[in-house]
């Protein structure tokens, strides 16, 4: 009975599909990461190169999501509250980083901000390149989570506050932002998870220099190429753990905050 959630055959096939695609691979990953015991796992993720890559990933992702929170909210605001010619096109372009293959994103940034840049900015092979690529690929998350909330927001509260003499900054801080916080937080969570695992857009523009521009996913890739699968698996599990903790934590905050606002 498909309408009631699938017949036995359908459920069985679905179970096999998910097991083959997700369950078994994750189980294999966890098994490989823990094959040498806790001390080996710890050794793998605290080796100087791994640690540098993990630290860079976390720091770059943190900086990028803060910028996303600020610019994403501003962009969402302009797309909802402002009127200007071409707004429709700008609105659809926001999704471009989702639609554009990551390797193309990297090449696109490199063509303007790399060697031989027509604007004289060359960030190739620097840490700024890591941030730039991450900003590009995570751009839509905050915009797309704040936009619908802003659209639903009742403007009469803001008008009331303004007519009672509140300055625009006060209206923004006391009325608008509190309602937007849950949406901003959930956009930030998605950006952060995406930034932690990003790979394709970083490959060409960062040069993958150990201790300098090598992020976690690039380090994992290198270990796989060297056939050091246990090392690759350990760092993978560490990054996955951070991503899940952050996603869980931020969804908790955003739920609490929205209850508080209501």
């Amino acid at each position, binding site marked *: 009975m*498909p309408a009631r959630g699938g017949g036995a055959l359908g459920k069985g096939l679905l179970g096999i599909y*998910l097991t083959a*695609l997700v369950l078994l*691979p994750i189980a294999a990953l966890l098994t490989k990461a823990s094959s040498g015991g806790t001390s080996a796992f710890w050794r793998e993720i605290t080796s100087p190169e791994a640690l540098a890559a993990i630290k860079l990933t976390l720091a770059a992702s943190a900086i990028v999501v803060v910028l996303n929170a600020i610019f994403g909210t501003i962009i969402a605001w302009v797309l*909802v509250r402002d009127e200007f010619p071409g707004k429709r096109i700008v609105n659809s372009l926001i999704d471009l980083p989702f639609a*554009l293959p990551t390797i193309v994103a990297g*090449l*696109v940034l490199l063509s303007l901000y790399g060697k031989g840049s027509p604007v004289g900015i060359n960030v190739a092979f620097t840490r700024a390149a890591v941030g730039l690529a991450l900003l590009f690929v995570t751009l839509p*998350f905050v915009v797309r989570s704040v936009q619908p909330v802003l659209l639903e927001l009742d403007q009469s509260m803001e008008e009331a506050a303004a007519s009672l003499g509140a300055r625009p900054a006060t209206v923004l801080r006391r009325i608008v932002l509190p309602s937007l916080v849950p949406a901003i937080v959930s956009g930030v969570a998605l950006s952060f998870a995406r930034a932690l*695992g990003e790979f394709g857009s970083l490959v060409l523009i960062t040069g993958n220099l150990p201790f300098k521009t090598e992020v976690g996913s690039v380090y994992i890739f290198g270990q796989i190429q060297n056939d050091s699968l246990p090392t690759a698996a350990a760092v993978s599990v560490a990054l996955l753990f951070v991503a899940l903790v952050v996603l869980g934590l931020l969804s908790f905050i955003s739920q609490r905050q929205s209850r508080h606002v209501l």
Partner: protein
Amino acid sequence: MSSSAQGAVSITPGAGIRPAQRAPASGSGRDERAARARRLGVRSVALGYLALLLLAPVAMIFYRTFEHGLAPVWSAVTAPNAQHSFWLSLEVVAIAVPLNTVFGVGMALLLERGRFRGKGLLGVLIDLPFAISPVVVGLALVLVYGKTGWFGDWLATNGIQVIFSVPGMVLATAVVSLPFVARETIPVLRELGTDSEQAAETLGASAWQAFWRVTLPGIRWGVVYGVVLTTARALGEFGAVSIVSGRIEGQTQTLPLYVQDRFENFDSTGAYTAAVVLALLALATLLAMNLLTRHTRKRTAA
């Protein structure tokens, strides 16, 4: 991503909401001028940011591709390896996307209509690929289906090669694009409700008939939207496919892998041309998303 879809669906430019207007009674000319200046300032920050981060770089790649005329672009497009990688990409997409469509609709039905233990776990499993790095997806697949993986011996004795060949690339592509169809279908399914399905069954329709005649027509735009997102992601997948394919030139090189290969071999025209082909496909995706959301809006408005 469901958030993007929600945004795209509900954003109607100029949907009755105008920039806040001060009540004329208290609004002196100076207040209004200050408000306009503020609005212009915020607008320039937003548009400037988008121009620098998004628009200018994307425009630049088109310029770089065509700056030496059409002849080099043509020879880059017709290079045998470029052709091969293009068709290989299409082949992988043509297998992975239908699989994810059928199973995605199934997962959505199960999550939204089914009642069983472990439903929460199923939801987490479906969303997991969004939280995992593509590189980690590739690694996890190698650990199961690779030569030294869990099924390595069994696959080898039966003469099946998964890793470093097309089946592995299809698997990797399917994993990274797994959540889209289910995530886009679930909200539509919820909105549809079960009333008409139950009515159909009361009138004597079998469950299959109810699904084909009532449920599927009701959710089709959600499914199609999910398929568009799945296709875009599948076509552009890089990290996971990079690991499981082995990147063998002319054999297991998809179009995104070809971009990297050309770039690293100092063939920038080849890299830029292939990238522009992918960028055009991405723009086509955006266009399709736009048309689809307009379609759903019209339907809900009517």
